[in-house]
Every structure is written in C-alpha cells, then in structure tokens.
C-alpha cells in the first residue's frame, strides 16, 4: 500500500470523457458565454462598417472626388474640397505634432533622469491624452480664433491643424518614449564606447533602431486626428469652396473637412446633402482604415 491515502481524493476508475458531469458542463457553458460576448463586442464595428458601406459606397463616383458640394436645392456635386481639406488640416497637424512629440519623447527617454520634471511631463501627457477633443477645439478658439492672433485671421486651416496637433502630441510623445526605451542599453553603450557623443548616439543609433514603433505611433495618431470633428467646428469651420492652397491666404482662411461636412450635411433637411454626408462617411472610414493598415504594414516591413 501507498503511504498516501488515495481514498481521500475523488477519482473515477475510468479515464474516458464524461460529457454530463458538472465540471464538463460548466466548462462548455463558460466557453459559449465567452464566445458570445466576443461576438457582441465586434458587432458594432461590423454593423457600422456595413451600414456605411451600404449607404455610402453606392454614391462613389469620379465627380464625388472632383466637384464642390451643390448649393441647397441643386442636384449632383461632390465633396472634393472636404477631402482636400482633411488632408491639408491633418498635414498641418502632423507638421506641428511630429517634431514636438518626437522631440519630447527623446527628451523623456534619453536625456531626463528620473526626476520630478520628467515625471511631471509623463503625467501631463497622460492627462492630455484623456482630454476630450472638444476642449482642444475650445482652447484654440479662445486663444487663436477670437483673438485673431494668426495675422488677423479668425477661422483658418492652421488653427484647425493646431487644435488637432494638441490631440496628437501626447500619443506621439508616448510612443516615442516607449519605442526608445525598448532599444537595449547595450547599443547606447556601444556607441558611446567608440566615442560617439550623445547627440550622435541618438540620431544615428537609437532613433533608427526605434523607427518602427515611433512611425507606427505617428501614423495611428494621424488616423485619430483625421477623423476628429469637435476640434474643427470652432477652428477650421467650413467652406463651400476650394481652398486656395497656392496663396498664403488659403492656409489662413476657413476650410472644409470631411468630418465637419458630415456634421453639417447629415442634419440638413435636404436629400442631396444627406447622401453626400453618407458618401463622406464612407470616404473618411476608408481613409482611416487605410492609415491603420499602413501602420500595421509599417510594423511588419521594418521588423523583418
């Protein structure tokens, strides 16, 4: 006999699977519940995409991309100026957010020792990334638009871009900081060991090594900014005309964007405008999807 007493433990003589005992029933119930909830979780995504595809994709045509929205009461037209405007405003936002965000991330990861100042900046970026986007819009409205600080201009593409860049900066700082922290210290020591200065170590060794996470973060933050509406309503406003990008004035006057066009047109009591809003939704979703996919692609290509 064994010194351990096997009678104290419940066990069956046979090893074959019994589907109806409590343990196996519970197991199947929980597996089913988990599967059900995960389906419910992705359901909104599928429904939203499907509905927009259904309503918007049928309006896709060449003129949608090349023509201006029609005046109320008329047929036809497109959303060309809003598509261009979204690119312009997002470009301006990236122009401000990428240098500031990457620079701040470099400071946090490479230069700051773990002092209160770096802690404060990290905390600050976390808070800023949670600030509702409309607050960014109101802030730019209050500081730049109503005061006409930008060379006497009120609503402008630049003001809209600045409002979006406020939303992008925390994401870019965080991904740069975290991307740089993933670079092994061995590499930095190696570069310093052959007599590289700190600046050369960062620009030639650590930044290239962290390129993938930084670029992915930047693309994702651009994707987020491109779809924002609230910060643009009081800053870039809207315009029924093409932006005149060849003159400086064009950059400093109000500009149409897809998200604001959707906001304006979907509540109008006009069939044509409603349909254009659906088409714009489809274009915007496709744009953001493309940006997200390119972020994933960037990650895969560079990790090879």
């Amino acid at each position: 006999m064994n010194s351990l007493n096997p009678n104290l433990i419940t066990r069956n003589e046979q090893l074959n699977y019994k589907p109806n005992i409590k343990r196996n029933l519970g197991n199947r119930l929980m597996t089913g519940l988990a599967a059900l909830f995960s389906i419910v979780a992705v359901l909104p995504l599928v429904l939203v995409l499907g509905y927009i595809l259904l309503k918007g994709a049928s309006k896709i045509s060449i003129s949608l991309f090349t023509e201006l929205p029609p005046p109320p009461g008329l047929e036809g037209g497109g959303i060309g100026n809003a598509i261009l405007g979204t690119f312009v405003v997002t470009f301006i936002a990236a122009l401000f957010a990428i240098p500031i965000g990457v620079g701040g991330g470099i400071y946090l990861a490479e230069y700051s020792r773990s002092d209160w100042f770096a802690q404060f900046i990290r905390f600050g970026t976390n808070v800023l990334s949670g600030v509702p986007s409309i607050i960014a819009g109101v802030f730019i409205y209050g500081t730049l638009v109503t005061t006409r600080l930008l060379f006497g201009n009120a609503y402008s593409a630049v003001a809209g871009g600045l409002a979006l860049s406020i939303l992008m900066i925390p994401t870019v700082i965080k991904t740069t900081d975290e991307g740089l922290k993933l670079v092994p210290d061995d590499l930095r020591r190696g570069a310093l060991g052959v007599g590289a200065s700190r600046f050369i170590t960062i620009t030639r060794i650590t930044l290239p090594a962290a390129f993938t996470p930084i670029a992915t973060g930047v693309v994702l933050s651009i994707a987020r900014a491109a779809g924002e509406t609230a910060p643009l309503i009081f800053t870039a406003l809207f315009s029924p005309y093409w932006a005149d990008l060849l003159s400086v004035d064009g950059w400093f006057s109000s500009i149409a964007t897809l998200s604001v066009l959707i906001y304006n047109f979907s509540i109008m009591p006009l069939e044509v405008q409603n349909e254009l809003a659906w088409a714009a939704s489809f274009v915007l979703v496709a744009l953001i999807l493309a940006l997200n996919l390119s972020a994933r692609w960037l990650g895969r290509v560079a990790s090879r």
Partner: protein
Amino acid sequence: MTLQSADNQPSTHEEVAVSMQNVTISYGNAAAVRDVFCDIPSGKVTALIGPSGCGKSTILRSINRMNDLIEGCTLKGRVLFDGVDLYAATVDPVEVRRRIGMVFQQPNPFPKSIYENVAFGARINGYTGNMDELVERSLRQAAVWDECKDKLKESGYSLSGGQQQRLCIARTIAIQPEVILMDEPCSALDPISTLKIEETMHELKKSFTIVIVTHNMQQAVRVSDETAFFNAETVENRSGKVGYLVEFNDTQSIFNSPQEQATQDYVSGRFG
C-alpha cells in the same frame, strides 16, 4: 581639451598607461570599491580578477568614464591618463572614450551592416583616410576578416556570437584608441570563440594597451602579463560589500607566488 598636468606624480613615467590614485567609487552613498592604487602598464595585457561584487568591472568602467551613465555613481581620487586627471572638470568624456575604447560583456553590434559597424566609429571621429582599407585592416586585426569579407553589406546580427564579439573588437580598433578595455568579453561565448578572441588579444597587445576583466582564472593566465586581484569585504552596518585591491603584480607572481593569503586562496580555488 585642456590638460591638467600631474606634478609630483613619480608613477606617471612613460610605461604607465593609466594610473589610479586612491580611487574610491560609490553608488549613492555606498562605496563599491575603495582606495585603489595601481599603475596599468602600457603595451601589455592587464587582467582584473576577483570574486563577484569586488568592483573590478566598476574600476574598468571608470577608466573611460562609462560610469557617468550610471545614476548616482561618484568617484573620489584620481585616474591619470597621459598625466591628465580623467575626472577633472575640463575633461570631455567623449574625447576620453575616443582614446580609451571599450568592448562589452554581451556582443552589441549596431543594427547596421558589418561594414558600417566598423566604419561608424571612425567616421564620427572624423577619419578622412581610405575607409575600405581601415575596415579591412580592423577586421583582420580582430581576426574576423575571413569570416565576413564576403558579406560586408549584411547585418552585423547575421554573424554568430563569437564573430559578433570580434566585430565589436574591430569596431573599437577602428577608432585607433590607445587603450582597449574589455569587460568579460568571453563570458557569453563558447570555448572555441573564446580561444579565438584570446588569440586576437595576443595580436592586439603589440599595438594597444589592454585591460580585461575576467572571471576565468585560466584565461587571465593565458592572456595577461599583469594581474590585479580584487577582493570584497563585508562592511559593518551595511548590507552590501565593498571591494578593494589586494595585490597587483605580474601574472606569474600572482598565480605562482602570491604575497597575500587571500590571493593564494582565490587562485588555488579555495573560494570565489
């Protein structure tokens, strides 16, 4: 670089590469290694041996100011190189590291091609000569040329661990330092790679002063001319240990007729 001359230091004659004078290195308030006096001769291989935690790596890193990167690390005393105190306020650590190169415990090639790995240091140091020639000469000196001459454009990571370490040695040679510091360069390598690196070191000491930290006493015997034995002692009222230099002599004496009992015990394998 302003040179602060070291007067009344009889030890800084021609053959001394680095002279440590009453060096105490602390992390925070806790001393890691204390009161080190030693003259590292130039053109020779000097091994630093001792049990873990005796501060030999700390001492090695202090020679090219790598300890600057560690927060809270402070040094008291003087480290003289060419008669200059490396820790004088006017000394630029980047200039120090250009003349005193370092090879690390883990092979750490840059994520660049083999060629660029070697050329990087020379380029940022303003080398204007023929780069192809320098890369080939450095790789030959580090005894890794034959293994990578056909794939200079490939990533440094495509090499094996031992080859990577020799690539790192080549990278250090390429900046033409006067002293090369090696921090347990073979601890991550297999015996055959270790042997190759040791052969490389025999070649290198013709042109460079080498200081190597090693845990392997046989390796110290095989490669070094001089050996410094460090030991660690427990300090009252503190959890850690503090290291100190027990004995510094030529390798033969350290291993065959040490002056100190602690050295005798360590090299004969009675502790550590």
